[in-house]
């Protein structure tokens, strides 16, 4: 339990996927303009991340048993792509309301580096099945926290008087820098809590 909590907090706060590990920057900058979109996108990411981890974990064991670890990258990206398609079809057929909320974002998630990233990080860190699931869940929630916070920041930016050269993307990145700086404040938090 203690380990699970520390993993969860690490993934959400100290090692936030977007703000500390730079995974999933494209959706972070691309779809964080409105709060609703940010929430929808991150919900889809959480969903796919946890599912992808659950599916790739046994596949990785299979690869390991046959000493085919070098195929990890190619197998995982295919599994994720297929999984996303499958989830889309299943949601469309059986859970229409969920599909209406998340469906739009699903195709975009295949090439989201946060999803492949979390799968590879779980393996690199040598987590067992439940630890992997918790870490993915934390990563997804961290993604959502960053997206939602940043959507708020961006809405405030809209009315500001910004120098011409900085308008648009540059000021967004500078704002992201400041948001990311606030997350530096969490450094050491988890270690001290569970020391």
């Amino acid at each position, binding site marked *: 339990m203690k380990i699970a909590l520390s993993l969860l907090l690490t993934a959400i706060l100290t090692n936030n996927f977007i703000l500390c590990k730079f995974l999933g*920057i*494209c959706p972070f900058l691309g779809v964080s303009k409105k709060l609703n979109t940010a929430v929808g996108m991150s919900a889809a990411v959480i969903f796919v991340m946890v599912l992808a981890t659950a599916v790739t974990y046994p596949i990785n064991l299979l690869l390991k048993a046959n000493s085919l670890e070098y*195929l990890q990258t190619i197998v995982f990206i*295919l599994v994720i792509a297929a999984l996303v398609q499958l989830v889309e079809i299943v949601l469309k057929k059986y859970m229409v309301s969920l599909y209406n909320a998340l469906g739009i974002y699903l195709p975009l998630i295949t*090439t989201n580096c946060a999803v*492949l990233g979390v799968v590879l990080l779980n393996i690199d860190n040598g987590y067992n099945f439940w630890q992997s699931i918790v870490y993915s869940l934390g990563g997804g929630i961290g993604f959502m926290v960053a997206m939602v916070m940043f959507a708020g920041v961006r809405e405030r930016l809209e009315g500001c008087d910004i120098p011409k*050269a900085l308008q648009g993307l540059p000021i967004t990145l500078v704002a992201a*820098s400041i948001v990311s700086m606030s997350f530096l404040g969490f450094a050491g938090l988890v270690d001290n809590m569970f020391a």
Partner: protein
Amino acid sequence: MAEKKSIGKEFTKGLVAENPVFRLVLGTCPTLAVSTSVSSAIGMGIAATAVLVCSNIVISALRKVIPQKVRIPAYIVIIASFVTIIQLLVEAFVPALDSALGVYLPLIVVNCIILGRAEAFASKNSVLASAVDGLGMGIGFTAALFLMSTVREILGSGTFLSGIKDLLAVFSGDIQFNGFTIPFLNENPLTIFVLAPGGFFVFGIMIALSNKLAERNGKPKAELNGCASCPMASSCALIADGKKCEEADAK
């Protein structure tokens, strides 16, 4: 003659006018993540360029064979194969780079520059033009990483080209050169620049400068327009039929 000229253009456009990082705003994740030191940035640049050129060549050669409907999965398989090859080569010959890049090396698979070029260029052009386009884009990516990492490493660690010995060891084991130390900054580094916030900040300022230059030359500024800049946009059925993406933005 005309052919030659256009090939030259395919090469140079990736360097400045259509620089993948500063102008097209693609591949932001690796740009921010590996630009903490110049040597890992160069290593990343070379690895990505190799994948880009190889995958562009193969995709362009197969462009008439791959069915339109399954082209994205096909591209991903081709790209992932080359990434695996590069990954194994780096692990074997430059282990220091492998540990410096960590998870970002296999993540070249989902680097938007590579899928973006496959979709926007290699799937429509000849093998030679695609190879040259890949090379130009790759060098443009490397140059952008070099610029970013130079600023971040000098300000953040007070060194320049530190750890380059491990990269050069591929050519010769007895090179002793291992970068410079910057006198004052080395003792008092502005550590924030090698941390995550510094990455966002330097990238923002770089884009602002490139926008300023583009404006002077009468070019539009770099923008990231949500779904429009996503390499999946053209294959994303939901966007294609009825601009669902804009609806989602407006919702």
